[in-house]
């Protein structure tokens, strides 16, 4: 049995650290970090084999944060894994910090690809999964892609390649929080239906509530049984999840809270 309570505790610390990091930095992306918090925590603490002893290996399970602006989430999770000191989190986005606005793989152990420019991470994840196929290495590659990000044409170039090469060792989790910087994704440039698009590209599609650990973990397990094609999990999520006044607000995509707002947020995250 999975220890869901432990995951919930971890997610709480992660969200609190995200608030602290972004408040201290006076910039950063909370909304899209919170929508994917359960996804990242469940991957790092239940699914992927990434530990202090293998983190520097070039060949192991890998995670590519294609929606690289959710860097506060990745750094906060890597801190929980013990790859970063908690006090380092407060250097996020500041001069001379390892913790860049968007993640740099050469600065932080456990950042498996430098991302931030949307659409590129999923393509790199395809390259990693392809490498494991070429060399018969039994590792899996996970990539978190945004729903707004899927407006980038390169996502579909990568989707085509992943199916063509039958990369069943690749699992994409699509964070469908429904919002992008300029508002509702369906109003800005509607990328839906994403599931039908992925199916048409040759992917196996699973659906979950992206904040429900049991559904996420079941989907990860199910994805491993799908052979001969890549799998995408369409994770329905809430942008800003966990803080009432941030939930489903496009305005919280990339804006830092004031100290008062941060305090109010931390009061909710207990």
């Amino acid at each position: 049995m999975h220890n869901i309570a432990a995951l919930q505790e971890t997610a709480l610390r992660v969200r609190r650290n995200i608030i602290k990091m972004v408040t201290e930095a006076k910039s950063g992306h909370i909304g899209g970090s919170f929508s994917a918090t359960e996804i990242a925590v469940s991957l790092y603490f239940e699914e992927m084999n990434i530990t202090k002893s293998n983190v520097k290996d070039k060949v192991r399970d890998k995670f590519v944060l294609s929606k690289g602006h959710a860097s506060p989430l990745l750094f906060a999770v890597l801190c929980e894994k013990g790859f970063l000191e908690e006090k380092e989190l407060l250097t996020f986005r500041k001069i001379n910090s390892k913790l860049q606005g968007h993640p740099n793989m050469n600065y932080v152990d456990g950042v498996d690809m430098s991302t931030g420019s949307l659409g590129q991470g999923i393509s790199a994840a395809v390259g990693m999964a392809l490498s494991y196929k070429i060399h018969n290495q039994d590792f899996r590659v996970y990539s978190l892609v945004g729903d707004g990000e899927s407006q980038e044409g390169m996502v579909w170039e990568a989707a085509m390649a992943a199916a063509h090469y039958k990369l069943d060792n690749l699992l994409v989790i699509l964070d469908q929080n429904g919002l992008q910087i300029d508002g509702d994704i369906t109003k800005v440039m509607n990328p839906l239906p994403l599931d039908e698009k992925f199916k048409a590209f040759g992917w196996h599609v699973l659906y979950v509530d992206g904040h429900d650990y049991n559904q996420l973990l079941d989907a990860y397990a199910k994805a491993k049984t799908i052979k001969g094609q890549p799998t995408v999990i369409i994770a329905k999520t809430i942008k800003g999840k966990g803080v009432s006044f941030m939930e489903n607000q496009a305005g919280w995509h990339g804006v830092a809270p004031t100290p008062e707002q941060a305090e109010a947020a931390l009061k909710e995250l207990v």
Partner: protein
Amino acid sequence: MAKMATREAYGKALAELIVRDEKVIVLDADLSKSTKTYDAKAVCPSRHFNVGIAECDMMGIAAGLATCGNTVYASSFAMFAAGRAYEIVRNSIGYTHLNVKICATHAGITLGEDGASHQSIEDISLMRGIPGMNVVQPCDDIETAQVINAIANINGPFYIRLGRGAVDTVNAPDYKWQLGKGVVLKEGKDITIFATGVMVQQALLAYDALKAEGVEVTVVNIHTIKPLDKELIVKLAKKSKLIVSAEEHSKYGGLSSAIAEVLAAKCPTLMEVVAINDTFGESGTPNALLEKYGLTSKEIIAAVKRHI
């Protein structure tokens, strides 16, 4: 004199390398018969991948492969490798400093009949602007083979600029290429020509013509545009009243700019630039284009004669 296109030499060298080095993975974007990576596919189909007409994805996949310890050779026409996929090369390969060798063929106007839409005349400028990117343009088949083999053992990103048309072999069979070291092909007096790519052969033609008239110039092959051989450039500038740069590229941002940056700071010297004069090319045979756009020995000779 032997003649071979640098892309041909690339294909042959890569076909040998891929068999020898199991870390080598080759990517192409539906141009493998033109870029000549097909030669590698023929001998090692399991490590050659045609990603389709998707150059951006090719560069992203190349980056991902490289993170797992592979040495990736990714090929397309220079227009698409450096142009279309620029930002992926910049962020996923340059910023990460990954071990991807972008071998871009059909560079410059000598691509010929396909016309301006396919003639990359800005790629050196684009690629040398990326921090940590090595930019190399071999001038003949022997140098190309050397480069392709050598860079397999030099970690980090490379942009290798290759041509479509057959060019005269200028290097001896025992030539050894060294990254960032210009090659003095002819020693002259107080005028130095720095040439790269197809303009090396033109510079040698200019040398012969000028010598027949009693003018001896120095001719240098600048195969590596980045890191540039600053030491050699300054050393030769110190004894030169004129520097001529020659390249099949826009006069903005390429070899001439790279040399001028060094000279302005270290040894201000009069320069003449033989390059494409801020204009797009057009369809035509490679030779007709070189003539029309002023990229022959004639322009190099004229540049020299303006100062003697």
